């Protein structure tokens, strides 16, 4: 939802959607536009959806640039850049009134539509012309490998359309292509200008969207969810990572392969997900902070070892970057459908915590929380992210490291090691000191078999009940100490007609819908859960007590969060769920708020 009518003249809010053949520069063009807008100090939010093919298929890259806080990729598109016909037919809808279509006229001609302004850009031939111009200056071999500057033509056209200066882009091109020599820089600068000039001739004096630079006191980060998760993990003390490639989590492993050794850490690409989590359990037992990251299919393979981590009380973080569909499903699309697996996925029962990252900025802090809880309660923590968040590029303030606290697991004191150390000592909060191999006097066998306080196997009913209670007591302690902190409140304070409970990557969109509803005079509030398990019962019930009706929007087929709330409370909730691979639009959530407000007026929603 754009609020152009309500914002001051120099405010910026543009939504640009790029569609084209995967592997042919659509993503590069999007990334460069993001870079340009970031330099202007604008707040960026992107959404990318990819084909599952290795090469080919249509990729869609939507980016929204705002001068104010940016909470979603935008509901309606102001500028659509269609590099091919197929992209246009797949993603040509959802345009705002008076939207601009910039299309590659070398590829196709769209059917006319009076609600759009169409601008033809012969992007391929303009690029080829610029390459021809420097042909005589380059050797045959270099010339053969040099692609025609198609993206740069598109960049020039787009920058002109939003009224941005070309100078920063020229500086950028000199920087990027500088090492390829002066002629290549000159070709790109000329391509940039030819794109801009070509568009200028066609638009005449018709009104265009405008972006305006926003001054910022400090630099901000431009970072994706997967990158932020990796940085958060390092900040929390991650020193051992093992993983197995899976979309859309692989980027975390690739990032850590590059960065961890310099922090004195180790990254291993395991032979499968079971080996990955096993390596992590071994390394954690040996004293390292560990993580593996995967997606739903991989998490289902790890379930047995998650239970060992719960039973043997070994700290461990497992990040699940959720993707769409069951089985192979929709590997490049988004979903929140692994919530059930995260909270219920185990044989019998063992303690575990589940957290969900809610935005790129929050991903840093929630990842740190995941490590801290794993260490503090010696348990596995499933950290949920998803494709839309993982690939989202966002401008965020750099995390304030002064606010960073890092927890370490409880270790036995010298006294305890001297006399009768018990690894699984029954304590008031259930947390027992964990000896690290190498500690004299700390010798024990970590085991998944039911055991007494020393770790020796034992199967009496009394022991089984007592040790299970000890392990689960840790989750009560976790909830009592942390649950209130691990939720976030938005919207109106006090009594409201509609309360929204949501989790994970939908936070921005739900906030935007909430703000929009408030602007329409609806009394509405939003509780966003970072902690899913153990269930934050008190904060949820406290929130529900001031809401006439509760709406639970989520990207699942069956309403998994709504059901999880019902299992843990007596609350009545109105589910709103879809699981088609795409995130919510703010408008969709707003419409539900509106409908629920109308339904519940005069009746108690609880």
């Amino acid at each position, binding site marked *: 939802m754009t609020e152009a009518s309500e914002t001051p003249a120099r405010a910026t809010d543009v939504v640009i959607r790029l569609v084209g053949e995967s592997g042919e520069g659509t993503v590069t063009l999007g990334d460069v536009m993001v870079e340009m807008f970031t330099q202007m100090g604008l707040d960026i939010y992107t959404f990318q959806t990819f084909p599952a093919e290795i090469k080919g298929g249509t990729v869609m890259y939507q980016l929204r640039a705002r001068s104010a806080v940016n909470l979603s990729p935008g509901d309606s598109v102001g500028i659509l850049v269609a590099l091919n016909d197929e992209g246009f037919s797949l993603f040509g809808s959802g345009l705002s009134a008076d939207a601009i279509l910039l299309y590659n006229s070398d590829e196709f001609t769209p059917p006319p539509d009076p609600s759009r302004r169409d601008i033809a850009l012969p992007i391929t031939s303009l690029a080829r012309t610029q390459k021809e111009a420097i042909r005589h200056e380059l050797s045959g071999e270099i010339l053969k490998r040099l692609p025609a500057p198609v993206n740069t033509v598109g960049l020039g056209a787009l920058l002109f359309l939003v009224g941005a200066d070309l100078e920063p882009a020229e500086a950028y091109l000199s920087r990027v292509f500088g090492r390829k020599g002066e002629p290549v820089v000159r070709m790109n600068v000329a391509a940039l200008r030819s794109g801009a000039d070509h568009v200028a001739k066609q638009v005449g004096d018709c009104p265009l969207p405008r972006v305006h630079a926003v001054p910022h006191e400090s*630099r*901000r*980060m*431009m*970072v994706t969810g997967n*990158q932020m998760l990796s*940085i958060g993990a*390092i*900040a929390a003390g991650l*020193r*051992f990572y*093992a993983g197995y490639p899976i979309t859309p989590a692989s980027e975390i492993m690739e990032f850590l392969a590059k*960065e961890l*050794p*310099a*922090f*004195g*850490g*180790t990254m*291993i690409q*395991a*032979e*499968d997900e*079971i*080996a*990955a989590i*096993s*390596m*992590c*359990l*071994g*390394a*954690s*037992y*040996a*004293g*390292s902070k*560990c993580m593996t990251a995967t997606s739903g299919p991989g998490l289902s393979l790890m379930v*047995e*070892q998650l239970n*060992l981590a719960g039973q*043997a009380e070994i700290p461990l973080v497992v990040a699940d970057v959720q993707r769409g569909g069951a089985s192979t499903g929709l590997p490049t699309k988004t979903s929140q459908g692994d919530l059930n697996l995260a909270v219920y996925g185990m044989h019998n029962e063992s303690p575990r915590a589940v957290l969900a990252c809610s935005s790129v900025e929050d991903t840093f802090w929630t990842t740190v929380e995941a490590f801290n809880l794993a260490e503090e309660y010696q348990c596995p923590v499933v950290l949920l992210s998803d494709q839309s968040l993982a690939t989202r590029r966002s401008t965020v303030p*750099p*995390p304030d*490291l002064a606010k960073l606290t890092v927890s370490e697991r409880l270790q036995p004191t010298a006294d305890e090691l001297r006399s009768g150390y018990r690894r699984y000592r029954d304590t008031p909060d259930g947390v027992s000191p964990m000896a690290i*191999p*190498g*500690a*004299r*006097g*700390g*010798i*024990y*066998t*970590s*085991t*998944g*078999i039911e055991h007494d306080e020393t770790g*020796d*196997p034992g199967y009496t009913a009394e022991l089984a009940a007592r040790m299970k209670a000890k392990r689960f007591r840790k989750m009560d302690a976790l909830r009592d100490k942390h649950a209130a902190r691990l939720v976030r409140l938005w919207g109106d304070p006090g009594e409201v007609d509609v309360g929204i409970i949501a989790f994970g990557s939908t936070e921005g969109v739900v906030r935007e819908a909430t703000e929009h509803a408030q602007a329409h005079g609806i009394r509405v509030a939003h509780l966003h859960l970072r902690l899913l398990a153990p269930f934050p019962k008190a904060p949820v019930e406290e929130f529900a007590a001031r809401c006439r009706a509760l709406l639970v929007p989520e990207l699942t087929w069956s309403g998994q969060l709504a059901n999880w709330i019902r299992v843990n409370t007596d609350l009545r909730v109105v589910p709103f769920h879809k699981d088609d691979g795409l995130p919510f639009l703010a408008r969709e959530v707003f419409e539900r708020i509106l409908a629920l407000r109308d339904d519940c007026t005069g009746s108690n929603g609880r």
Partner: protein
Amino acid sequence: MTANLATSADRLAPRDYKSNLPPIWCPGCGDFGVLSSLFKALSECNLDPSRTVIVSGIGCSSRLPGFVATYGFHGVHGRALPTATGIKCARPDLNVIVVGGDGDGYSIGGGHVPHAARRNPDITYLVMNNNTYGLTKGQVSPTSMVPLASLGAKIDPKRWKTTPFGNTEDAINPVAQAIALDCSFVARGFSYKPNQLAEILGEAIRHRGFSLVDVFSPCPTFNQDQTDEFYRRNTYDVPADHDPTDRVQAFALAFSDHGYPIGVIYKHPQKPNIVDEQEALRRRLGGHATLDELIRRFA
């Protein structure tokens, strides 16, 4: 490299490696012999119990870590090798020994053996091979043998509870498989020759790299064919002139058709190992990275 006690004067006796937990194995189980050989090898190698971890999966033999007075990790079925790899890579200063059975190591965990071999961490893997599933009471295992024709041994293919009409599957030759995988140390032992086994285990522990020792450890409860007597008759010592660094010779021994050779069969001493490689990488790149600098790269 092994984490030893400070001096040989501190050397512990084999019995000092014994925990206060009595083994739960059946009377006559081959694993008793393996355990006593392991005690001897630990003592002979002078390993520091506080810096030694014994890792296992699930099965009769996988209960072994609890019977040894070192650190132990008794995990889930079939995942001892990657667990141990994680321990060793995170803490190269620890001695890491993996123990388990033929089902744990060659069936459910079989997929991890090639990767342990190619990573070659300094880990000793001791497989107590009884040719059956003992803990689950007598099902066919991947080493339940089709006997060598030349031995004339009688093995009832219908013996196993899951092969009532005969065994329709061939067995794994774990030694030949390990040589094919270029596992950097491959040996075979027999639990009824405990002194020889202790020597083999000692050599495996001292070997810098991944060592696999397949030990015939008969199950008197569920396998009345491959008994201690059967193995006494059908095993022989690796010939004194065998060169374990010769892979072709090693293969020839692994496929010997007149019994099962006991001893060190294959060695690849100079094979690179993941732990050293990762340590070198950390030394080359480590020590300079800061969180501030990492964050600044994105700003």
